[in-house]
């Protein structure tokens, strides 16, 4: 499994969002994309499964340009776990996850699809929720159900848009840990957007740091998470220490904070 992006750009009616994106992710691994708000992280992963069509350059999945592939074929290879999922008319957890089988089955799912869905629910230890309405779940359960739906697509590549936002620290570690294990146990190329640099650095094989619509740095967590990179991209002073072999960021203050953030300078004591 391989995602290869060449000179890709994307813009919404002449407003450029992504520029000069070059990225090559090859083989099963756990990749996280980090960067400040609005740098185009979601846009980037939406270009990887054709939810958005790049305005320039190419996105290749397993050697084939997805520009020429039907959406359904892309959906068989690339699974997707959205940031939010509004379910206007709530279904049960089983039926929600069953939708992930959609690219593979005909006009309706059969017992085999159901079997796959129950296997995934059991693997993620959420089979006790099977018959519960999707809208009555907690944030952590909700996130695991959406992950199950992404897995039900039986993808080679799994994209996740901030799967740990709104989760408490235990659930953040749990979900990220599951993703890492899945990449190993099921030969998955997992690409996750994250806002928590430390959790991402702890589990990722590779990290992608984005700044203003471009890729600023790609490499191992130790290569990407450095004091100078965090300062240049986020505008934040920090100290990076080693924690069990992973870089760990200890935050200080935003760059320029001494002068105050409000116009006119810091209030006098």
């Amino acid at each position, binding site marked *: 499994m391989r995602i290869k992006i060449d000179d890709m750009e994307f813009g919404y009616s002449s407003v450029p969002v992504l520029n000069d994106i070059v990225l090559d992710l090859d083989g099963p691994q756990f990749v996280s994309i980090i960067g400040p708000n609005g740098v185009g992280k979601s846009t980037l992963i939406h270009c990887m499964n054709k939810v958005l069509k790049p305005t320039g350059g190419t996105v290749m999945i397993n050697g084939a340009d997805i520009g020429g592939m039907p959406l359904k074929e892309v959906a068989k290879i690339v699974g997707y776990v959205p940031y939010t999922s509004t379910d206007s008319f709530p279904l049960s957890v089983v039926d929600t996850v069953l939708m992930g089988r959609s690219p593979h089955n005909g006009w309706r799912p059969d017992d085999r699809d159901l079997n796959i869905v129950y296997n995934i629910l059991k693997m993620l230890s959420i089979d006790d929720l099977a*018959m519960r309405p999707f809208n009555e779940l907690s944030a952590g359960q909700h996130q695991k159900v959406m992950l199950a739906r992404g897995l039900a697509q039986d993808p080679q590549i799994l994209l996740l848009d901030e799967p740990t936002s709104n989760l408490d620290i235990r659930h953040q570690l749990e979900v990220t840990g599951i993703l890492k294990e899945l990449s190993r146990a099921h030969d998955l190329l997992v690409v996750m957007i994250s806002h928590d640099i430390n959790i991402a650095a702890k589990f990722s094989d590779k990290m992608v740091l984005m700044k203003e619509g471009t890729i600023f740095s790609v490499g191992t967590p130790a290569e990407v998470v450095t004091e100078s990179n965090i300062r240049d991209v986020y505008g934040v002073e920090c100290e990076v220490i080693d924690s069990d072999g992973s870089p760990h960021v200890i935050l200080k203050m935003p760059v320029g904070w001494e002068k105050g953030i409000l116009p006119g300078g810091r209030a006098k004591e």
Partner: protein
Amino acid sequence: MVSRFDDMFDNSGEIRQYNLRISKKVMFGVICIALALVALGLEICLGKAGIGFIESYTIIWDHITGNIPTDPAGIQKDEIVWNLRIPRALGAFFIGMTLAVCGAAMQSIMKNPLADPYTTGISSGAGFGAILAIALGFCLVPGISGYNATVINAFAFSLLPTLAIVLISRYKRATSTTMILTGLGVMYTFSAMTSLLMLVADPEDHKTAYVWNIGTVGAITWDNIIYITAAAVVAVIFMQIMAKKINILAMSDADAAALGLDAGKVRVHILIVTALTVAMAVSFTGSIGFVGLLAPHVARIFVGSDNRYLIPASAAFGGMLLLYSDCLAKSVGVTGVPVGVVTAAVGGPLFLYVLFRHRKKIWSRGNAH
């Protein structure tokens, strides 16, 4: 294709349980159909011909088996049942079915519990077409007048709003909001023109147009029932085949794309079939309200929001609902009232009850995270 998640655990118990739940959902449809058969007898025995409830089934059975009575009274009853009451009953059932199925699909694809088959402006278009024929004697097909002119105009004009939406969706993304707003715009335009024609129409035409706008199944005969039946069959089969996709459309469009579905395209396809089948059904009867809104919501309480079961359940319940509504409509006052009055009068309060009693099951919003 083999999945890596094919063989992991033994799920035979869970799958059996899941399928058992499905058979319970199927039971709802079966009960509705059974109740509709009871309503058929009611529909036949209500009226001035003095036919009994049980007798109505005997007459149907005798006609089917070729044992038509030879005495004058028997012949008369057979004719009343076979030529007047049965087409009316079948028509009501099939129109209810079409409206309910399209209503269920519209609610999901518009992600809106207030959506019904008329959301995109079908009824306002049909109303304008009808009054053109009734008040001005104008028909799109030259040389046709009277009831047929109303039917032809209503059918043609009711397709215009959907045509507008389809054209707009070629240039602008066909999101549910675009569609609902376009429908509103078209509706106000047609309503204004209809009001203008109503003002200048003479009193007799005014009454005809008014009754048509409420909706009545009195004009259904063997001549037009074929169209009404065809509309119902097409609507139910198409929506059932699309049910899986309709489920996905109830989520965000980006979600749908990630599952391999072009939401805008599928939405337009469903819209076109809705427009054609609903227009076909209501151009003979006028815009019967509330069935397309209420029936899917009631069905939802019993079978849930999975369109694979909601579509057939809505079909059965909608057909039954309109049939009973017509029974009631026939028995009000001396001459009966248009069925549209009953669906609105019964449907309104019933809808409120359903809304308060089962709000959570029917509709949820903003449950992301």
